[in-house]
């Protein structure tokens, strides 16, 4: 268990959040996660870091500074990601969960991470 587990556990307890993952931003390798069985954590982690990184480069190229949040909405769920160049924190949420609540919980969890 990593020092990040309590924060991830708290995030995963947010209503509508199914999984919380902390990922190495550079390598896309999973650092720690709280998630249900059956979720392909490594794949979700790698894709979340990749999407966040690519969004960051796009935003930077457009002269808009650093990306602060990326959200992907799909038929069966939402992926919400925050982070920086070192770590990425991702939440997988139910499609009908509160967008505002998920984002708030994710940002609070990010601030609470021991770094």
């Amino acid at each position: 268990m990593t020092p990040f587990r309590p924060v991830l556990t708290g995030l995963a307890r947010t209503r509508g959040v199914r999984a919380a993952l902390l990922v190495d931003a550079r390598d896309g390798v999973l650092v720690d996660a709280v998630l249900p069985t059956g979720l392909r954590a490594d794949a979700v982690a790698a894709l979340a870091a990749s999407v966040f990184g690519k969004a960051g480069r796009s935003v930077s190229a457009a002269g808009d500074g650093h990306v602060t949040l990326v959200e992907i909405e799909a038929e069966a769920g939402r992926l919400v990601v925050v982070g920086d160049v070192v770590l990425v924190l991702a939440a997988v949420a139910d499609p009908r969960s509160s967008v505002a609540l998920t984002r708030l919980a994710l940002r609070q969890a990010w601030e609470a991470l021991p770094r």
Partner: protein
Amino acid sequence: MMRVVEAWAGAPLRQFREATHVEALLLLRPDGQVLAQDGLGRPSAVMSACALAAAIHAAAGALGRSVDGQPFREVHYAGARRQFYLTALPSGTGPLLLLAVFGADGSLGLLRAYADELRVALAQGGATPAAPPADLEQALDRSLATLFGGAPR
């Protein structure tokens, strides 16, 4: 341009290549026999890479058994300009090795995720397990000839 010795491996490898944008990749048997390659121009480069990849896999396996009781499944090296990732993949014709070379800013996690998909695809491929070649050197030469054209030496 990707060249394959075993036709059934072509489609999964192309999908992997397109998804990951690796600079080079090799699919080989643990004895060093190449089955497919992309991004390594010369036969000598392919031969060297296969021999080294097979040796690294064997050494990593021995090290894993020594420290962990079971072989290490994959090896990752991060250099200043490039990274490589070497992993074992089961297939219908027996165990295979995948060597992928990618840039320093590439994502290891993404590569591993797509390698898992490739692992599933290759496990279903090939009709029957390949018997160890009676003459390994001839088998290696035939593979290279298939990839690069020309008669085996």
